[in-house]
């Protein structure tokens, strides 16, 4: 390439031009994503209370100490694990089943797809409020249906009984997230070339064999990418829990992201919230590294 002994320019003209062209896209990302992240990390080490912004100062690891010494932290971490993994597995399983039903043409498919995808278009808070009323112990429709069906003899305090509360918020979250997998997996399945199915038919493959040897291998990159993304989103999704239980009763439904929100809404304490945020970032970093290497990132979508 350049063997004349002249020093290679640090940045070629083409690369500089590309960088220049990227700036309009890069600047908003830097300002809107990286600056708040950096600010959040700095806040984690500060006394940063909304009630007195005139007294912002660095306090070292005090916020982390307060969070790690919180007696509710073990429950919160356990809840976060349950919330993410039960929600993910059932959202994926139901979404996958729906996508198997929806990806081939049949009369009225558009209507069915519309109905299933609808939940994805709604706000998390709204979904939380709707489910809060449905799970209401006295006037909720779920108790009424269970009573009428003879499945229970007395009303269940779905949101008021700590034994039921976590289950109830997870049910609402599963309902919400099914649409995401149904959409993504249906789209991936619709891109499977018809010849593969024809070949499978000629080989005499039955439905299960087609699923195992044609559908799943073909959509595997989508499965890996969507499940990885979904874990991050579920982890950072306080809306439903916040609207349904506010983290209660008696802190029994808090996850890290609702706990963080709680520190802001009630305490106005952005320092403590920042510390919870940094802990969350660390956990997510560990998870994404583990997940991507465990599933071989080269298969994770067509990058």
């Amino acid at each position, binding site marked *: 390439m350049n063997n004349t002994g002249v020093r290679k320019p640090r940045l070629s003209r083409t690369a500089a031009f590309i960088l220049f062209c990227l700036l309009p896209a890069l600047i908003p990302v830097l300002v809107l994503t990286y600056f708040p992240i950096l600010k959040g990390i700095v806040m984690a080490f500060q006394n940063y*209370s909304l*009630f007195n912004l005139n007294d912002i100062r660095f306090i070292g690891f005090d916020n982390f100490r307060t969070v790690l010494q919180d007696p509710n932290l073990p429950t919160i971490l356990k809840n976060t694990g349950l919330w993410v993994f039960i929600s993910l597995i059932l959202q994926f399983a139901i979404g996958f089943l729906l996508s198997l039903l929806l990806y081939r043409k049949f009369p009225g498919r558009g209507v069915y797809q519309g109905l299933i995808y609808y939940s994805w278009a709604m706000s998390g808070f709204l979904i939380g409020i709707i489910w809060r009323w449905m799970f209401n112990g006295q006037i909720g429709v779920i108790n009424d249906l269970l009573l009428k069906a003879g499945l229970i003899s007395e009303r269940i305090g779905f949101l008021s009984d700590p034994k039921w509360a976590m289950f109830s918020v997870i049910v609402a979250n599963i309902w919400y997230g099914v649409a995401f997998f149904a959409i993504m997996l249906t789209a991936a399945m619709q891109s499977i070339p018809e010849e593969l199915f024809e070949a499978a038919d000629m080989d005499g493959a039955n439905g299960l064999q087609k699923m195992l040897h044609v559908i799943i291998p073909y959509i595997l990159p989508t499965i890996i990418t969507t499940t990885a993304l979904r874990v991050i989103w579920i982890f950072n999704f306080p809306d439903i829990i916040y609207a349904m239980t506010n983290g209660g009763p008696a802190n*029994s439904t808090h996850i890290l992201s609702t706990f963080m929100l709680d520190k802001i809404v009630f305490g106005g304490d952005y320092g403590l919230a920042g510390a919870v945020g940094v802990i969350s970032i660390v956990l997510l970093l560990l998870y994404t590294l583990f997940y991507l290497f465990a599933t071989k990132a080269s298969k994770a979508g067509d990058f």
Partner: protein
Amino acid sequence: MRIGKKWFASTLLLVTALSSLTACGSGTSSEGAAGSGSTEPVKIRMIESLTSPARTEVLKQMVSKFEEANPGIDVELISPPLDSADTKIAQMLSSKADIDVLEVRDSTVKQFVTNNWIADLSPYTSKWSGYGTLNASAQMSANYIENKPYYIPYGLYEKILFYRTDWFKEKGLEAPKTWEELYAAAKAITDPSKNRYGYSFRGGKGADSYIVDMIRDYNGTNTNPEDAMFLKNGNTIFSTPEAKQALENHLNIYKDGSPKDSVNWGFAEMVEGFEAGVTGMLIQDPDVIDVVKQKMGEGTWSTAAIPAGPSGVTHYKVGAAGWGMAAHSEHKDEAWKLIEFLSSPEQNEFFTQKIGLIPVHTTASENEFYKTGYYKPYMDMNADAAHYIPVKPETDYKGFGEWRSIIQQDTQAIIFGRLSVDDALKKWDAYWLDQKKQGK
């Protein structure tokens, strides 16, 4: 390039993780650019906090009347969802977003003033004739911080007891005069087989004031009305045997006279429980009168004064919310014009009657509307100063926001047997002694 793709994929996912986390933790301030320097008309933006569709509609009507009377001023009303409105307002103020008039509440005014977010209105109130006719509670609320008017209340909130007269008649009961009687009545009415319960218990968001009010009443005249988390001798209200009795009575009302679900109930569920015929008693602010009137037939319910503690004393807080001005507003004169208009005796009477609030002008208290019917208990309570003692809200303490969460979660923990009454009271006592030490 396998490695390259791997790292690219990892980086992309990590960025997604980080950005979604940030989106969760901090508000996005996507407010438009300031509209300064525009010619005419001047545009001012106002934001409300205690939003509801019906209330927003009333506000819009008032804003339209204002715009008609002031053709040079356009008003844009912002109505965020109720649950996140105060956080949204705080974020807009801290980022100096384009806001001129805002709803200030007794629970937010301290924070707004400490951060220099809202303007002292004295230069305007000194020239406003309506300021002189504000009643004592409204004046006190307006001047609660630093003795300066930081907002003009649009109405006062004070709790009363709502009860089902038909159910009470069935059981031969009278409206309860003490908290013990309220417990007895709630227990008598409760019949889970009919899905009928005595009391709309508040165990969820906002439970704090119900617990604290009862504890104050049990402490009787020892409670210091000027600093009502404390007794006159300087100890906290949680340090006495009476506090334990009060908390136990509160828990018994839940256990024997309230729906199990109410451990999580907030405002909406309490009111819905009463309206839907699930509960026979409800303690709430006057804005509920109109809602209940619309849903329940005349003659099936009534209102009464708040029950008293064992010594016959009831403490009550007058809550307030009103209109304040952003300190950074570039259209202060126009903003004041709007506040003055909304706070005028005529507009205030219109607003309070539509929404169901206690009006702020002395001129309105002579109105028959408030002297009879469902509002009568307010007048009775205000007229009997020996038994009904107004107290200053504790909203000016720095730890007030955190306290609300602590007491709510702790009381739930007691209900589920995870915390003892004694330990909770000790914890709350220590919390308030610490607050006192830290100063306001």
